[in-house]
């Protein structure tokens, strides 16, 4: 299989409240305006988990739900998922470090279970009642590309759809140096086998390959570059821009070392 269908796209970031709005901005028919993200309510979760869920989980769940909007709950529950992040949840990390720095080292149980890198995957599964396979991957700045490779390989090995969700958030001031993004960003791609053209409303991604960077990575859409430069999950934006325009052509996302993950998009 050398093509994947893009069955759904989701997004959550300041000024990008969902794929419909984001697609218009990325396609150049609407202008981007920065707006603070409201505290997201993961309403699929039971009350206790809804209260406990950390920021990256809230963003990831919102983006994933956006990508799967309109699908019946039974279908959503069967979809496997890949969660990608460069740095995980810096807010939780800072709280954990602060608790450990006190003499009594009292860590709250919720803080501890929220500190696992796969917290968004766990909360998503609870909310969607998804018993399917789910993973959480990291490859530093290349985390979105690594997630796309993992999702691609999952679809090709099972012939079934996979939801790729990428999320990174700014870190609190004490850890600002760790993660370089200044704005939160989450996106989700619901990917399916590429041989079914009926089920690829957002076009297809074809010919995915890891290449040495003869050409450098595609640049972020100019209207958004200032806001999302440095957020590893936002490395998806050149691909999302292509999907918003239903455009054909080659793009390259940053991968490890000086390599790129190159791919074609087709309407």
């Amino acid at each position, binding site marked *: 299989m050398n093509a994947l269908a893009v069955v759904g796209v989701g997004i959550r970031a300041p000024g990008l409240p969902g794929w419909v709005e984001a697609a218009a901005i990325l396609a150049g028919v609407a202008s981007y305006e920065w707006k603070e993200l409201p505290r997201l309510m993961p309403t699929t979760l039971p009350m206790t988990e809804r209260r406990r869920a950390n920021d990256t989980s809230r963003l990831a769940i919102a983006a994933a739900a956006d990508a799967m909007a309109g699908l019946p709950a039974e279908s959503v529950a069967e979809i496997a998922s890949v969660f990608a992040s460069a740095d995980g949840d810096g807010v939780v990390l800072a709280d954990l470090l602060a608790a450990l720095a006190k003499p009594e080292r009292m*860590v709250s149980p919720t803080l501890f279970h929220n500190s*696992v890198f*796969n917290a968004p995957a766990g909360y998503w599964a609870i909310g969607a009642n998804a018993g*399917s396979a789910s993973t959480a991957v*990291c490859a530093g700045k290349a985390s979105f590309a690594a997630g796309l490779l993992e999702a691609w390989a999952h679809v090709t090995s099972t012939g079934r759809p996979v939801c790729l969700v990428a999320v990174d958030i700014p870190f609190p001031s*004490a850890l600002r140096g760790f993660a370089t993004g200044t704005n939160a960003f989450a996106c989700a791609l619901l990917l399916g086998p590429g041989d079914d053209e009926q089920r690829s409303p957002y076009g297809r991604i074809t010919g995915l390959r890891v290449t040495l960077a003869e050409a450098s990575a595609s640049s972020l859409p100019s209207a958004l570059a200032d806001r999302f430069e440095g957020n590893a999950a936002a490395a998806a934006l050149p691909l999302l821009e292509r999907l918003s325009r239903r455009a054909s052509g080659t793009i390259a996302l940053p991968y*490890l070392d000086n390599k790129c993950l190159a791919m074609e998009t087709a309407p």
Partner: protein
Amino acid sequence: MTRFLNITACTLANACGTGWTAVQRALRDGQSGLRPNDFEPARDLETWIGRVDGLESAALPPHLEAWDCRNNRLALLCLEQDGFVTAVQRARGRYGPERIAVYLGTSTSGILSTEQAWCTSSPLTQEDYQHRHSMYATTAFVRTYLGVTGPATTISTACSSSAKVFGAAKRAIDAGWCDAAIVGGVDSLALSTLYGFRALEVLSREPCRPFSADRNGISIGEAAGFALLEYDQPGEARVLGVGESSDAFHMSSPHPTGAGAAHAMTAALAAAGLTPEDIDYINLHGTGTLANDAAEDAAIMTVFGTATRGSSTKGYTGHALGAAGITEALLCVMALNEQWIPGTLNCRRVDSRLGSRIELESGPARVTHALTNSFGFGGTNCSVALGRGS
């Protein structure tokens, strides 16, 4: 015909010892690697730990000094055992370094560096963080040390992390991203995990006693393990199937009926083309908490009933969290090669409420197929089926 990946080289380091010979000797002798907590940064905690000796004074080669942290020291210590580097060099010659991937599991990477820097109020720089503490740090360190440049990813799904690497590596090779993969896991002692598990009230004050009637929690260990996976090369064991699932129930408690765990085991068997009767030995997740062991027992009863032999080796190594999957997959390789299964150390009497066949004593056994279970926070489950080498 189904092709199976071979484990063509492997190595491990944990509380029982560094390298195959030492670990095997400890298991044969019924010698636990657990000791009363003497981890200097957490001395006030009353518990038993599986600490790997010598990490405090270990050094990285000068050109890799930027990567210095407990997790990478443990990774290096392990990589240097059992001829693993030589095996990787041979694979580099066979495929080229750009065709060899690295998939490693960890739950906390080198977080200890940040914990300690935070306490001394001289925070790590961004570069320090990238080299030592980022979830990707140890994977980047390992591929740098081994000189391989293929795809690389850290899988961090808590305590199933380094079991899931087998699935990711197989998919990557089958998709054509690479020809061979180095898989493994590394997790080292840290304040967050020690005090975090204490907060959940599942940290035992004594050596853990999985499946015992009087079990009262886990003993945390640190460990590393690596395996080289290739098709069409003779190996020590074969990876027959990987099953992955989610509980979709709770962030830190298993589903009481073990439904998700059973699903992972069934999926691993299906991928391997095996029936439950084909499995001769199960290395259980068996952490030693009341809830975990009961849920796993329920899942075993669903899939295997009362006949299949299982044991938990956490009494030897402690719970190595993100490195538990690779550690226990490699102990299955040992069982397959030695035709010998380890017992459940520290468990004197199995909890009478449990129904599955828990082996207390080690001993010779015919082992053609083995299965290992790894479950973690977030309701993540992974089972790996392994077979004898070709």
